[in-house]
């Protein structure tokens, strides 16, 4: 009995200590690392999860360079002053970084459905770390998938023509871009009830957005409302910026792109965490 009282006291004191802001921040980071490690182990154990995340972009690259490329490639090439493959690939990097977020949605939905989240929620760990650990692990995976897309592009004749700094900035932007949007995917994952729905819900909004953008074709070739929409939506701004950096041209939309990223995280990170905490009440 007395033993009980003592260790209980210790526990309460430890809890009180961890409620200071700096302690909470420290544990938030350490818990995030732990959860990131756990999610990365999933990719090591099941490499097919990575395979699926670049199979779609690879199909798009082949479809657009080999099937449509013949007809429209020369027109775009003339409009843009470079081979169509050099126009397309920067857009594909943006698409790849974005779409790989579907794994975040599916992974979180699976954790919620399979009860792994019950384990996490019954531990004295940071709530938000379950989500940051997921989004970070998926960004690490994006490094891998984007690298593969660069290699696939090179085989088809894609070349970086900007300076090294510009190219590096383009790739870092892609990762940050993917990370920002992974919060949207995380939010969807916490809202939907099962991994199957998550798969669809993750993709459904990306699909129209990626076509109504400058990823595959320049937006000025589009008509009326669609053109207006395409020119102002973030995928176009991002694709144009990454493309400009890779081709060594002025990237005049860099600021709006960064604002979009910050805005997306500012809105969807708290939303996802709030929904996650609320979900099982």
């Amino acid at each position, binding site marked *: 009995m007395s033993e*009980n009282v003592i260790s209980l006291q210790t526990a309460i004191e430890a809890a009180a200590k961890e409620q200071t802001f700096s302690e909470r921040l420290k544990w938030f980071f350490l818990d995030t690392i732990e959860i990131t490690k756990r999610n990365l182990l999933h990719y090591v154990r099941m490499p097919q999860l990575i395979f699926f995340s670049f199979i779609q972009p690879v199909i798009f690259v082949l479809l657009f360079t080999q099937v449509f490329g013949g007809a429209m490639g020369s027109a775009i090439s003339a409009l843009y002053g470079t081979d169509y493959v050099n126009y397309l690939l920067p857009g594909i990097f943006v698409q790849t970084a974005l779409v790989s977020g579907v794994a975040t949605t599916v992974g979180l939905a699976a954790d919620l459905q399979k009860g792994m989240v019950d384990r996490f929620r019954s531990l004295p760990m940071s709530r938000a770390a379950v989500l940051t650990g997921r989004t970070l692990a998926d960004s690490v995976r994006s490094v891998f998938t984007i690298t593969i897309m660069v290699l696939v592009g090179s085989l088809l004749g894609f070349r970086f023509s900007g300076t090294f700094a510009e190219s590096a900035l383009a790739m870092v932007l892609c990762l940050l871009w993917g990370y920002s949007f992974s919060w949207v995917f995380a939010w969807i994952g916490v809202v939907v009830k099962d991994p199957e729905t998550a798969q669809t819900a993750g993709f459904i909004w990306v699909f129209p957005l990626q076509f109504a953008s400058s990823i595959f074709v320049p937006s000025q070739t589009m008509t009326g409302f669609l053109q207006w929409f395409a020119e102002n939506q973030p995928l176009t701004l991002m694709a144009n910026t990454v493309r400009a950096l890779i081709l060594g041209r002025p990237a005049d939309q860099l600021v709006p792109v960064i604002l979009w990223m910050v805005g997306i995280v500012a809105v969807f990170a708290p939303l996802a965490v709030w929904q996650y905490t609320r979900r099982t009440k």
Partner: protein
Amino acid sequence: MGNTPYAVVVDGVKKSFGSVTALAGVSLKAETGKVLGLLGPNGAGKTTIVRILTTLLQPDAGTATVAGIDVVKNPGAARRIFGLAGQYPAVDEMLTGRENLNMVGRLYHMPRQLAKQRADELLERFALTDAANRPIRTYSGGMRRRLDLAAALVVRPQVLFLDEPTTGLDPRTRMELWDVIRELVADGATLLLTTQYLEEADALADHIAIIDRGLLIAEGTADQLKGRLQKDVVQVRVTHPDHAQSAYEALKVLGNGSTQLDATSGWISVPVPHGPQGLVEAVRLLDERKVAIADISLRRPSLDDVFLTLTGKPTAGE
């Protein structure tokens, strides 16, 4: 606050999911260092109580404390005190047994070395050392349960919640798990265990609370409850229908006046206070009268019988 004699106190807790009332106002207590068995059929509200106590759900009304800590007001502190093995194992299928335990230790903010050491200890204790480096998805149902239980024990919790720990296990694995649970209690932990099996509550719990449809319907030690429950029944069928009446006469006293003869089937039912003794006695009595027995069996009260006796209506489950 820490010196309460009750490690778990649930007071007037209510919880509804939409129009479904899962808990209609439940109060119960688990004495420190003892085992409280929460017995009830499917859908009774057992899991809901456990989830509220382990901070996974918020009650609509009422209070719940674990080791004196209010789980609603101070969930963070409560999470340091208890261990939970839920109704379904909450372990990572892709990770190995060792990785799972290590991760849980780290998330409890144990130093790396200590977490590692504790994982090894637990793997050893639950006979999982050989399987330690295999992903959980290759584990059998019993191994998964054991690992989940190990995960609940990483910080040597003072209060342990086990939600239907043996459901779905084969009888041998169930017995093994019973032994493990008895050891835990011997170590001094307070245990709240839910089960659908009367015999399990009887075998493991010091104190039993029976719930049905979100309400506590009976409470007491196994012996106290047994006195209120339906007795064991010896059932006999004689070889020659002519002998049925004579057999019935022979068993009348044994059944203390409640012996019954079913004329159409020829079965005689004899309620007895203690099953095995009653069975032996019935055989002896019939043997004395040279009545040949075609069939004899002992029926123990099922959970359904218990509920029928206590509530006068069958259980909510199917």
